[in-house]
């Protein structure tokens, strides 16, 4: 069945360092991939989305490239800020009229 894997539960970094949050997926259909960010006591909001192979998508300093050959959609940022501390969810919407799937989430904690 369709699934999303996020390998890191918690990532702790010092402000100004680069970050990569891993996301791999499994589906037999042509996928739509999403990254959502959830700040403390708030609802998740869309950060990035893509369905185009090998095309980088960017928003608010974050970027990700969908690689269908490796079934990956890793989230990156070149320099994290304190305000980036949040929960990050990778999600898959397979193009088969089935409900979307969310990964387990990665908590990013940025220290001064």
């Amino acid at each position, binding site marked *: 069945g369709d699934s999303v894997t996020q390998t890191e539960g918690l990532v702790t970094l010092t402000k100004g360092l680069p970050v990569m949050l891993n996301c791999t997926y499994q589906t037999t259909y042509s996928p*739509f991939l*999403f990254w*959502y960010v959830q700040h403390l006591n*708030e*609802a*998740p*909001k*869309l950060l990035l*989305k893509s*369905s185009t192979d090998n095309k980088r998508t960017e928003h608010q300093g974050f970027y990700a490239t969908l690689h269908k050959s490796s079934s990956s959609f890793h989230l990156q940022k070149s320099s994290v800020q304190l305000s980036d501390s949040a*929960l990050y*969810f990778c*999600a898959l*919407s397979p*193009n*088969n*009229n*089935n*409900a*979307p*799937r*969310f990964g*387990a*989430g990665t*908590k990013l904690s940025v220290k001064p």
Partner: protein
Amino acid sequence: AQTIHQWPVAEIKAVGSPLSLGCTIKGKSSPNLYWYWQATGGTLQQLFYSITVGQVESVVQLNLSASRPKDDQFILSTEKLLLSHSGFYLCAWSLDWGDEQYFGPGTRLTVL
């Protein structure tokens, strides 16, 4: 503009008591609707989704049920609450499969 409203904002309920949580979407006709449950700082667990009035699919029941009595309304309920029902309940909508989801502000439930 589309708006999503959830009620109540927060609830404190006794074990064994009934529960009804509501979600209303304005400004969009025939959206896909979703219910999620989230433990504090935890994974988003999809509970139910609906693509049309009167039709609800269960993903994980957790002794809960859902209904869509109107195009713009999604209800989550149970007749007997368990301690394990405590958490953050999120309603979301999307235009279609493959589209991003827009989350409501959530309802925080505490079961004592």
